[in-house]
């Protein structure tokens, strides 16, 4: 028995099979019920086939469980070809006896004539044979709707599908089958398959939200066992297939490390009580030109000097520009990159959906194993996302960093030059451990800059609003702006006025 099942205090009567689909076993609290049938329902283009294939592929690669794929719609050649894109070499698994197809796609010989009563005895015999031949533990049937289009006797089909799933369940096989839906929020499937055949129902959605596509997965029911409720975002990765982002499972722990790391600016370290915590996430917010990118550059450079690995996700400026800027402040990004202790990743915010950005960033973090990560800027990403998608993104990224005890510096651009808060900070300030505000201050005909550490979870910090200057060596933080009030609101007044 699965040792993780023993963590439940209540005895679990329904054993589950870990699907191996990233994130899905978390929201299903252990996977799919063993020797049961699960319907994967979704509209056209909702990744049903990918799910059905991924379920078998993960069985082969992670659990050494052979699988049978019954295709009713796509040709066997198409399935082999299409799924290579996800890195699944089905043809090889077929040769190794780990994968078998049952080809039930519409016949090239044309529609079949029907004279009298019939059933799906031929199909059942072939599936049973394939399961026995390779010792399959998993079977995917994709998609049942093609059957309902081809054969008009729907009562017969329902009875036969029930017979097929019952037979497979008796053989100890865990079945996944797909069915098409018409609406994202209507009947579960077009032909009401679920009532007859499915013990469990999972819905895949691909809905438009604020003009953007958003993929989610929801477990609608799972007979006799518990699961997470609601919709969870997922993405299709060319490296891993389906990746579910199990938000509710993400625990946003506060920074627990007492180890401090340098921000790259000595005076700022002092203001924070000795540097940032090693596993903390810091939001730096300020108007355009206040020095957010400089702060990021110094954060990266400070990491290099401390023999750490630094990773920068840049969504606003090109690599050339970032390297030029760094050089102008006396920091050699090219040299750091050469020593493989700095990695700069440039992306266009609008090039991908938020979930795709997230998964790619998590993969890069996994590969590069940085000690510190900067995102410049979050606001650029927020502009291409829905509010919910953005919050989920920040929660997931923050959680990834914390799990890896990695420090994160996120920047956000406030829309007004003087005072005011950015939309970004309004929505995510509770998710970060520290907030640093960078502000312009108008003062007797000159524009000065001021900085304040607003919050420092788990530590004392300097609550002075301090002036800072920027020169060829970077940022210099000076004295408290004692004669000026209203810096944060942007309505400065001067004492003695």
């Amino acid at each position, binding site marked *: 028995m699965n040792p993780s099942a023993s963590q439940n205090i209540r005895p679990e009567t329904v054993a589950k099979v870990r699907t191996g689909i990233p994130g899905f076993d978390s929201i299903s609290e252990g996977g799919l019920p063993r020797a049961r049938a699960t319907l994967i329902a979704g509209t056209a283009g909702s990744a049903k086939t990918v799910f059905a294939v991924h379920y078998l592929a993960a069985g082969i690669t992670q659990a050494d469980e052979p699988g049978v794929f019954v295709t009713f719609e796509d040709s066997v050649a198409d399935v082999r070809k299409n799924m290579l894109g996800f890195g699944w070499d089905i043809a090889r698994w077929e040769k190794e006896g780990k994968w078998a197809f049952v080809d039930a796609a519409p016949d090239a010989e044309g529609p*079949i004539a029907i004279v*009298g009563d019939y*059933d*799906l*005895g031929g199909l*059942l*015999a*072939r599936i049973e044979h394939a399961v026995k031949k390779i010792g399959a533990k998993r079977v995917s049937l994709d998609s049942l709707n093609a059957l309902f289009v081809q054969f008009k006797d729907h009562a017969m089909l329902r009875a036969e599908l029930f017979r097929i799933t019952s037979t497979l369940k008796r053989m100890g096989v865990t079945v996944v089958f797909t069915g098409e839906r018409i609406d994202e929020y209507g009947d579960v499937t077009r032909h009401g398959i679920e009532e007859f055949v499915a013990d469990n129902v999972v819905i895949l959605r691909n809905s438009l939200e604020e003009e953007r596509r958003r993929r989610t997965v929801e477990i609608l029911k799972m007979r006799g066992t518990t699961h997470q409720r609601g919709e969870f975002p997922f993405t299709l990765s060319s490296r891993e297939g389906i990746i579910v982002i199990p938000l509710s499972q993400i625990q946003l722990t506060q920074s627990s490390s007492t180890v401090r790391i340098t921000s790259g600016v000595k005076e700022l370290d002092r203001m924070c009580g000795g540097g940032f915590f090693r596993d903390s996430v810091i939001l730096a917010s300020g108007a355009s030109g206040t020095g957010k990118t400089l702060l990021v550059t110094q954060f990266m450079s400070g990491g290099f000097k401390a023999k750490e690995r630094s990773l920068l996700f840049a969504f606003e400026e090109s690599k050339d520009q970032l390297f030029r800027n760094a050089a102008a402040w006396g920091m050699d990004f090219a040299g750091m990159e050469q020593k493989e202790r700095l990695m700069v990743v440039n992306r266009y915010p609008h090039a991908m959906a938020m979930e795709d950005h997230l998964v790619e960033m998590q993969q890069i973090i996994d590969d590069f194993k940085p000690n510190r990560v900067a995102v410049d800027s979050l606001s650029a990403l927020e502009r291409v996302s829905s509010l919910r998608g953005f919050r989920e993104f920040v929660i997931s990224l923050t959680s990834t960093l914390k799990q890896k005890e990695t420090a994160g510096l996120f920047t956000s651009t406030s829309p007004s030059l003087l005072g005011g808060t950015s939309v970004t900070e309004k929505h995510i300030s509770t998710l970060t451990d520290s907030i640093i505000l960078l502000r312009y201050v108008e003062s007797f005909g000159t524009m000065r800059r001021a900085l304040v550490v607003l919050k420092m979870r788990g530590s004392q910090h300097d609550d002075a609003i301090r002036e800072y200057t920027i020169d060829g060596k970077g940022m210099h933080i000076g004295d408290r702006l004692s004669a000026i009030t209203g810096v944060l609101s942007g309505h400065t007044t001067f004492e003695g006025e």
Partner: protein
Amino acid sequence: MDALHLTLYVAGDTPRSRQAMANLERICVEHFGGRAKCATVDVLLDPEVADTERILTTPTLIRESPTPRRRVTGDLSDAQRVLAALGFSPYPSPQNP
């Protein structure tokens, strides 16, 4: 004309299988006068062949030759429709002059 070769695929020894076999035999005798070569395959005993022939529904009757191949599924209870589906204009039979 090539020899008429028909294969009937059934799933096990069920009333429906026996019905289809009986109906086919009658059609062969009455309409082809024994000139047709008829074979029966039980997919439960020979699933590999069912796989090669991509049999989904049973009973299924396939006209192997002459080509092009044609398929009919069901218990073959209506001889005239079976013949039409196999591509033969219905023969006048003694029962239906």
